[in-house]
Structures are given as C-alpha cells and as structure tokens.
C-alpha cells in the first residue's frame, strides 16, 4: 500500500484548508459588519452634503451644491462670517502648535540632557500629570481665564489647552532627545559650538520627526476642540467652527440635514487630509496623547 508523505490524509488536509478559509471569511465579514456604523455614517455625511434629498436614508436623489451656500452666505443673520470663524479655528490650531512646540522642546532637551537638582522630581511630576485628567479643572480654569481677562478669546483657549498638553509633549520630546547619541552633541561641543548653538543647529534638526508629530497632534487637538471652546467663548466674533457647527445643530437639526452635513464635512476636511496622509506620524504619538473619548 502506498503511503502519503504527510501523516495526514489528503482529504483531511483539504478539510483543514476549507475550515481555515471559512474562518477567514467569517473574520472578514465580522470586521465589515462591525465597521458598518462608521462606514455608513461618514458616507452619509458626504452624500447628504451634495444631494437634494436622500431616499432610504442613504441613496442620493438629486445632486446639488445648495447645501454649501453657507460658504458665501451665513445660514441666518444670527451667524458670524464663516471665514472669520474659520480663521479663529486656524489660529487656535496654530497657536497650539507654537505654544506646545515652543515650550516643550527646550524643556524636554534640558530634562533629557542635563543633571540638576529637582530633575527627577520634575520628571515624575510631568509623568503623573500626563495621566491626570485636566478636564476636571475646567471650572477653576474658567476662573483663571476670567481673572486674566482672557475669557471669550481664542488665545485663552489655546493657552489652557497647550498648558494641559504640556506634560505629554515634554514626555514625547524627551523620548526623541534621549534617542540621539551623546557623541553627536559632544562632537559639536568639541568643535567649539556653544551649548545653545549645539541645541539649535545640531539637536533640533535631529528631532524633526518628533516636532512634526507633536505639531500635527497639537494642531488637530486645537482645531477640533469642543468643550473648552463652547465653555470659554460666547462672543460670536471669537467663535470657532466647533461653536458654529454646534449652533447649526441647535437651529437646524430637524430642518436641514444638508446644511448639517456640509458644515460638518467642511469642518472635518483638514482632519481628513491629515488622517489620510500623515497617519503614521499621528500614530507615533497618539497612544500617549489620547485621554478623553472614553
């Protein structure tokens, strides 16, 4: 009798293969079905903003651009100019970037490279604060901003947000500085550069990926901010897109889903761009930076 080279019979092998394929199909359908709320939700946003009406909730009936008329004409006189609001949001995002990068990078360098009394304490402090939920301080931050006269200003919001993000940013940047070998820095010092020159000309270029990652993260976090904006800013001249879209929800929720969808999509565009093209960057730091959102 001829014996197979495998200890398993051919049809058993086939059975196993079939079972493995069945499991694969099962896994893929599981992934697809559980992701449906996300897929449908975001497709709706897109479809609804460009169509007159959706049948069965999702099939566009007539394409139109009228939902986008808010770009040149406010939906009602009550609303501030969209482009002013847009500029405020941009300032909030960029302000975050400047404050976070500008303050955390030098501090992280010192904490990574220099020995001084209190260093360990500062490091432990940043670490503990990193996981401390800053949002619980909202009420007293309101008081602080009121005292400083920064209520109703975009500057107030980005200062608060940058402050709360600082421990995280310092920690990430310190990680990047830690990764640069001493020899690089020593070579610069031996060649006669001052400490500051070394930092500026030799070290900073080396941590560019870190600065990039933190910048994107800070920008998106400022751009998307909701709670601090609606709490600290009521004056329409300082509204950001969060307040704008929030008001659209309040005023048009059951009346005009087209407007809701297109303002939301407009607000989301930069986020989408970063999400599609800078995801790797974003993910390098995002795990450490995620707090809210349950």
């Amino acid at each position, binding site marked *: 009798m001829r014996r197979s080279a495998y200890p398993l019979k051919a049809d058993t092998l086939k059975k196993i293969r079939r079972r493995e394929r069945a499991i694969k199909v099962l896994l893929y359908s599981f992934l697809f079905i*559980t992701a449906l709320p996300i897929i449908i939700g975001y497709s709706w946003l897109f479809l609804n903003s460009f169509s007159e009406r959706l049948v069965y909730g999702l099939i566009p009936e007539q394409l139109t651009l009228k939902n986008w008329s808010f770009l040149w004409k406010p939906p009602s006189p009550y609303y501030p100019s969209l482009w002013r609001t847009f500029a405020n949001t941009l300032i909030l995002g960029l302000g975050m970037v400047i404050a976070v990068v500008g303050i955390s990078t030098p501090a992280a360098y010192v904490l990574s490279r220099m020995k001084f009394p209190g260093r360990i304490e500062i490091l432990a402090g940043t670490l503990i604060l990193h996981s401390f939920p800053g949002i619980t301080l909202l009420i007293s931050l309101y008081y602080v901003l009121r005292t400083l006269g920064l209520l109703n200003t975009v500057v107030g919001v980005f200062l608060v947000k940058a402050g709360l993000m600082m421990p995280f940013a310092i920690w990430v940047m310190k990680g990047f500085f830690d990764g640069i070998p001493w020899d690089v820095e020593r070579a610069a010092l031996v060649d006669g550069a001052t400490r500051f020159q070394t930092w500026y000309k030799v070290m900073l270029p080396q941590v560019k990926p870190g600065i990039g990652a933190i910048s994107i993260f800070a920008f998106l976090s400022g751009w998307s901010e909701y709670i601090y904006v609606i709490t600290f800013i009521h004056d329409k001249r300082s509204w950001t897109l969060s307040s704008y879209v929030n008001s659209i929800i309040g005023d048009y929720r059951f009346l005009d889903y087209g407007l809701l969808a297109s303002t939301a999509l407009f607000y989301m565009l930069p986020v989408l761009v970063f999400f599609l093209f800078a995801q790797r960057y974003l993910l390098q730091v995002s795990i450490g930076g995620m707090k809210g959102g349950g």
Partner: protein
Amino acid sequence: MLLFLSPAIITVLVFYVVPAILTVTMALTNMDYRFQWNFIGLGNFRRMLNDFLLPGILRVTFLYVIGTLGIFNVTFGLILALVTTSVGERAGRFFRSLWLLPRFTPPVVYGIIWLWILDPTKHGLLNSVRVAMGLRPVDWILNYPLGVIIVTNGIIGASFGMLIFTAAIRSIPRELHWAARVDGAGLFQDIRYITLPQIRWPILFVTAYQTLSLLTSYEYILIITKGGPYFASTVWALYTYNLCFGGYYAPYQFGYGSAMALVLVIIGLIAAITYWRVFRFRAMMAEPLIEVV
C-alpha cells in the same frame, strides 16, 4: 538652562497647580455668577449628601463606565486587535485605520453623524430601516439613553485598546504560537492559552487607564443626549459641568460644582499616581514609538 525650563514650569503652574488649588478653595465657598468668595465650610459636601439627584447620577455613571469599558474599550478592542492581526496585513491595517477615524473626528461632527443615525423621525438611519420594514419610528435617545451613550462612546473608546493590544500581540514571539499549533491547538485554544496570558498586563493597563478617561470625559454625551431625557444619561462629570455652565434652572453654581469636580480631581490624582507606581509608566510611555498601524 533656566531659560529653557521656566516657560514649561510656568505653564504647568498656571494651568495645573493654580487651578487645582482653586478647585479646593472654591469647593469651600458658595460662589455663583457674581464670583464672590463666601466661605461656607463643608456646606457643599453636606449638600452633596442630600442631593436627591445624586443616587441616580451615581447609578448612571457606574453603568456607563462599566458598560462601555466591559463591552467596548476592553472586550471589543481586544476582539478587534485579535481579528485584525489574524487577517491579511493590508486588510488589518485598513480596518484599524477605519476604527481610528472617529477618534480624530471633531466631536461635533461625530455627534452630528449619531444625531442622524438616532433621529426620532423617519429620516434617521435606524428609523428609515424600521419604516422600510413597516415598523413605526422609535425615539432612540428617549427610550435607550444609557445604551446610546455606551455605544457612541464605546465606538471611539475601542480604538485605544485596539492599538495597545495590537502592539502587545505583535510582540509575542511567534515560536510560542507555532509550538502551540504543533501540539494540536486550534485557533481559539491558541488565543486562550498563548495570546491572552501574554497580554494580561496591557489588558490591566487599558482597563485602569480607560476607567479614568470614562469617568472624566463627557463631551460626546453632552453633544448627543445632553444628559437627557431628564437625568437619564447624566454622568457625574456632566452633572458637574451642567451645574456651572449648563442649562439647568440655576447654572453658575461654581462653589457646588467645584466640590463635585474635586471628587473627580482626587480620584484622578490617586489614579495617576497609582498608574505611575504600578505600571512603571516609564516603560509604557516608550510604547508610542512602536508603529502598529
């Protein structure tokens, strides 16, 4: 050196230390919209004991945290990590990115999507399905407030566990899986006896970390249900917020609100220090450098 360090120290002082001290002090006053410092001792804490809304709010908070954590942040996050690492590399990466999208979406935009899905009229997604099947539309938020806040927060929360677990699963030596398979283990036995024991530390970490996140975050609840109907989806943190800035009959109760917030601040501080001790946060923080998507 001082020049390099002082801006950071000042920001941390102004935005962490001062507010923390203020929270404690304000909790001892009955400060309202006039911002006057009338100290009333422990009055706010006595009021807390007599607040007839609090038992209900505690119940909602408890169910919300346990429910979201148990169903989504840990369990579903783990399932996503296991499944996306079992299918092909590209497909896995695609689905992981998809699950991350809600996390990076501005909260109001995410809220709008859910307001449409849950719309009580026939125009909402769920109700248009019901209408197509010949059923009457349902007001989802009115009928299932707790379910709504658990699902909407869970869909965002699941991605945190997913990323941490994916990184952890990736770091398990392959030989262990091979050995198990050679010994005759099937897929589920492999997961049960090899994968899970290897990632129990990350599971513990995600559980602890996300408990705190869930206790203190409320913006999606604020946007989607506003804590209603009545107080049916109001969690502790949202109640605190609404006492000060919300639409209750008497907002701007900064004194009482601070006392409520103080409870969260203390929980947060204890938790943060515990993480640091237990999980050697040093090691955890190295993790963001692992690319998982």
